[in-house]
């Protein structure tokens, strides 16, 4: 049976709007990006809390910081590279160094903007934002988790970056309370632990079932918080399986895989395979074709896991 799919952007926009009905400190900032980020309704209902600035992401980031110093909770969502790379110094200094309560959301993250090409892909956002001290980095895995993570980030006092994708996503499990900094075991297993995040989780779960049928016992850990990384769950997975593979729609260097490898190197050395996108300007094509090309579709994940298990 086909599971129901939801638009991640609309899901996020609706979740923030719902909280904003109760919390008047929340303001929405747009760089010609609010309508496409799920805030059309909010803009109509609360024009006094919806600020349009046009296409100037660096300045909007600074404005958000200034607003936060007065007690507002600004939410600024646009295409992921434009709110992470374009405005990086403002993110680092005005949000990170000043530690302001601003929520930046990169939509169409990873290569979910597929055929729009490498300018619109975001395969280094985890790497660059997690280097900013004190910034929480989130990457929810299904619509329910997008809702829960949106609420959690608004409750949290401090700068947050959240990445969401573009194509409609399946509801993978019933919505649960989101705890920043915590991963969860989605499936138990003993031969291999696959640690994954965001859009990759759905395919990893399906790949794990196939691997199971092939005789491998695979644990799957969902890691919707990239920073601060859940050290305990990584240690547990290392101890129980002795072999960890990470899967993410991100460059192989600097993302979730690197964080997992850092923890393992220091606390629990085991064999690790980091599966993601090799460091190149990703090719353009449909999302499904890109997943196949970079072996992040179900077959690609199964193939890489088998190679790692037998390597």
């Amino acid at each position, binding site marked *: 049976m086909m599971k129901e799919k939801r638009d991640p952007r609309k899901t996020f926009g609706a979740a923030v709007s719902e909280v904003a009905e109760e919390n008047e400190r929340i303001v929405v900032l747009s760089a010609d990006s609010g309508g496409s980020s799920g805030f059309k309704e909010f803009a109509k209902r609360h024009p006094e809390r919806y600020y349009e600035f046009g296409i100037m992401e660096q300045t909007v980031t600074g404005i958000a*910081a200034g607003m936060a110093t007065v007690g*507002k909770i600004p939410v600024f969502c646009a295409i992921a590279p434009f709110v992470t790379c374009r405005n990086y110094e403002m993110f680092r200094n005005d949000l990170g*160094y000043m530690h302001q309560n601003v929520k930046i959301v990169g939509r169409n993250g990873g290569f979910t903007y597929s055929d729009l090409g490498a300018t619109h892909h975001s395969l280094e956002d985890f790497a660059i934002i997690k280097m900013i001290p004190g910034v929480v980095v989130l990457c929810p895995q299904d619509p329910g988790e997008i809702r829960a993570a949106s609420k959690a980030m608004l409750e949290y006092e401090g700068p947050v970056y959240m990445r969401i994708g573009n194509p409609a996503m399946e509801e993978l499990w019933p919505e649960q309370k989101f705890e920043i900094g915590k991963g969860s075991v989605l499936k138990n297993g003993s031969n291999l632990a696959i640690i994954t995040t965001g859009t990759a989780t759905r395919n990893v779960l399906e790949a794990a079932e196939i691997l199971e049928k092939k005789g491998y016992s695979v644990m799957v850990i969902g890691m919707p918080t990239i920073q601060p990384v859940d050290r305990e769950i990584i240690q547990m997975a290392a101890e129980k399986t002795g072999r960890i593979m990470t899967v993410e729609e991100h460059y192989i260097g600097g993302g979730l895989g690197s964080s997992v490898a850092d923890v393992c190197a220091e606390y629990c050395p085991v064999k690790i395979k980091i599966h993601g996108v090799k460091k190149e300007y990703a090719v353009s094509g449909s999302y499904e074709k890109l997943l196949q090309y970079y072996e992040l579709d179900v077959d690609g994940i199964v193939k890489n896991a088998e190679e790692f298990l037998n390597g």
Partner: protein
Amino acid sequence: MEKETVKKRKELELIAEKCRRNILRMVEAGGHGHIGGAFSAIDIITALYFYKMRVNPKNPKWADRDRFILSAGHKCMAQYAVLAEKGYFPKDVLDTYGELKSKIPGHPDMHKLPGIEANTGALGHGLSIAEGMALALRSEKKDAMVYVMLGDGELAEGSNWEAAAVAAQYRLENLVLFLDNNGLQISGSVERVMNFMPAGEKFKAFGWNVLEIDGNNMEEIVCVLDLMPACKEKPTAVICHTVKGKGVSFLENEVSCHFWTPDKEKLKLAIQEVEARIGKMEEEQEA
């Protein structure tokens, strides 16, 4: 009435000189500093804190306070000097300039020192941050003003021009920009490095109210501050014509004082010059 005005102006001039001395005190401690811009900006910053702004040094986070953001964060010695003079922190903190974990680093840190509103230093950030404050204060129905100071070399940062459009479109009459137009940046004349002059015309074209003053003349500074908020439904830019290194004769208009690492003799001469002026002003006031 006129007599009172003159008295107030003379008081402010004396405070500004004491603040110049405070800056040199930091140079004595740390051995160097961005004093060229600090000296060109000090008269305006002094007047803001001692004449205009609604602030409370004993309650620096007071919600209704006016804000001052020094976008050209390298001039922070000027702000430290004024905050110390105003009583935000004990003056002996000035002697820690350059020390490990000093509360007064080479660019300001709001989490280290009371009275600092933003972590500036990377140029082209302060105007956007100030606008966020102005927008938020207005939405909270507070009548607090937001003052921001930019350097003239800083105008080459494109983010300022994005922000220039925002302030005009959002009609931020509670925002005032002071441009410390001393005409010199580290590589030489601002006009030769990258010409953004006449800056006033550019802000006008964006829809700002624009005023021009001699930014080292206390009478003109006080006059312009008396006008604030100066224009309904428009942000105001005050183009302040200033002199880099103002107040030490051998540093004035010298680009080398942008970041000054003096030998003992030069520092002594600078201190003597400022102290002599302070002495003379105090005598005049007592008389």
